[in-house]
């Protein structure tokens, strides 16, 4: 089953089990442009799988109104970049509603905002903004890396009673992988993707696959890298990360997002505060993603980057500059 089909199945099962679950967004009636809603309008009808106008602000805003009044909307934004047209609705409305109104209402909506570089699509279609949403109280933020987790985490997100920013990856839709029957994945729990002893490498989304490739290669070179697939960005699995980092004595965080003020900073800062061990980050340079492949590649964090950074880190004293 591929990543798109896995999400589709989780949504279909949720819709079968609970009449309150609806889906809405542009092009969902024809299955979504990535096939992530395939067959759903046929099964559940146009009243529950709702084609909408190109009105991102109102797609989210209406979902808030739906959620407050008894539905559990799953909201399609196509890519996180377009959700920037609906930020008031996500941040000022969905995220704050429960608090601002003293718990009178709840906003159980799932907003699908895929992240990542979408090859050849350039600056306005290639952003990874998970750090933004982690910064906003009231939101849960999820970023599945595999078909199994896209199944399990989407199911969990629909169950969650609060707004979930559900960040699939723009280029994982076709990824094949096994989805064990009745597979579950809990919000806030990371996955130990590969055990290791010299270095803890924390990452999420598509880069998990790059990290695993790097770890495999590093092992050949005698460096044992533990790879953690964070899966949830908020809440993030501090326990697993801190335990692993305490054990290996070194932490590296890698993400596709721009490194500056990315979520890697939160993890690195936390580990530095809590454990005082050496930390490193590997994120994208602070440049927009360019169109030409050479430019796009300059904005990518590759398996090769992670391999080199890991080996260099393990063989260093842990600080980048000496204190004069």
């Amino acid at each position, binding site marked *: 089953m591929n990543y798109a089909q896995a999400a589709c199945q989780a949504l279909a099962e949720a819709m079968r089990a609970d009449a309150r679950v*609806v889906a809405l967004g542009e092009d969902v009636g024809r299955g979504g442009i990535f096939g992530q809603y395939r067959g759903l309008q046929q099964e559940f009808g146009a*009243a*529950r799988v*709702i084609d*909408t*106008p190109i*009105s991102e*602000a*109102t797609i*989210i*805003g*209406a*979902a*808030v*109104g*739906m*959620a*407050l*009044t*008894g*539905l559990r909307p799953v909201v399609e934004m196509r890519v996180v970049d377009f959700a920037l047209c609906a930020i*008031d*609705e996500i941040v*000022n*409305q969905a995220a704050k*509603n*429960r*608090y*601002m*109104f*003293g*718990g*009178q*209402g709840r906003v159980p909506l799932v907003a699908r905002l895929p992240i990542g570089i979408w090859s050849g699509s350039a600056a306005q279609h290639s952003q990874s903004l998970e750090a933004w949403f982690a910064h906003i*109280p*009231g*939101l*849960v933020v999820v970023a599945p890396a595999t078909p199994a987790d896209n199944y399990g985490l989407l199911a969990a997100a629909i169950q*969650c*009673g*609060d*707004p979930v920013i559900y960040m699939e990856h723009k280029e994982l839709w076709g990824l094949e992988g096994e989805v064990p029957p009745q597979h579950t994945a809990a*919000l*806030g729990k990371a996955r130990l993707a590969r055990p290791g002893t010299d270095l803890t490498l924390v990452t999420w989304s598509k880069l998990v696959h790059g990290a695993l490739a790097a770890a495999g290669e590093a092992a050949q070179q005698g460096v044992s890298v533990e790879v953690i697939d964070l899966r*949830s960005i*908020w*809440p993030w699995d*501090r326990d697993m990360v801190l335990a692993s980092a305490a054990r290996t004595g070194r932490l590296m965080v890698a993400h596709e997002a721009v490194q500056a003020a990315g979520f890697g900073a939160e993890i690195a800062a*936390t580990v530095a505060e809590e454990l005082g061990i050496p930390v490193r980050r590997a994120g994208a340079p602070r440049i927009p993603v360019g169109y030409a492949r050479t430019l796009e590649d300059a904005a990518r964090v590759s398996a090769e980057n992670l391999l080199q950074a890991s080996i260099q880190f393990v063989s260093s004293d842990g600080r980048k500059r000496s204190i004069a």
Partner: protein
Amino acid sequence: MPANISAANPPHAEHLLSLYRTMARIRAFENAAEETSRGGVAVFGATADATALVRGPLHLSTGQEAVAAGVCANLERSDYLTSTHRGHGHTLAKGADSTAMMCELFGRAGGTNKGKGGSMHIADFVVGMLGANGVVAAGIPIAVGAAHSAKIRGSSSIVACFFGDGAINRGPFLEGLNWAKIFELPVLFVCEDNRYSATTATDAMTAGEGAAARARGIGLPAETVDGNDVLAVDAAARELVARIRAGGGPQFLHALTYRVKGHVSVDAAAYRNQGEVESALESDPLKLASRRLAAFGVSAARVAEVDAEARTEIEAALAAARAARSPESAEAYADVQDTGAGQWH
């Protein structure tokens, strides 16, 4: 309070008196809120001190009460309402308890929002009041979604969506009306046109013939009404609400009124001319209604009694709010979210 029909006061007089009562309660509530808000906010050159009971920006609907009263008289408790930063009137008219509201304005744990929202976020979900909003026009999509939900759930609830004349220049106005119409949703859009957007006369910022013309351009039936004439608002709303309940889809009401006070309580509104305000005061909705009541043969004493009742109610609300406790610090950490709620992480 159910209308008390007697031979001396024929039904239409009683109905008007009941509308008047709603307006009088709003007026009394807001006068009290204004009184207790002095020193509460730093804006328009004012400095905040720590003594105010009502803190932060306080937006009064003084002079606009007929819109809230006239529209909400046609709503059921099970209907929904979304409002703006200027939402006390809508909330009271929808049936919220004035004591719980005053507690909220005082930031008390027993307020409608447990002290978390204040005036600008006043809400009472139990009576279907889904919230004031600090962001202009942001209530529109939420209202539309509530109506969409009612339709999907097969509920008979309708939604009244209030917004100001300034809001018709923000994107969600277009998006929300379009959405409501293509899905034929049960929403009454109410543009409460008080002629101002903060310090700006809205007219100069608004192209074309205004709210109703825009609504029609998006395919919605639209009516314009004298928003200071509570009977006119009531009659128009009755008609539009009846169409909505009959499955006629979204309707639009443009109510012309006037913002008698400044934008917020500390705004002296020195940017507009006093003559304009004075002539507007001539058509104060309570004044108009009490003249009409007199014409209907309702005694001045009866009207004064209603005024007095309203004041008494609000005095009691004030006293209760004064006596009520503030939330504990720890309560700041509740109602955030179930998964991932913490203090710092």
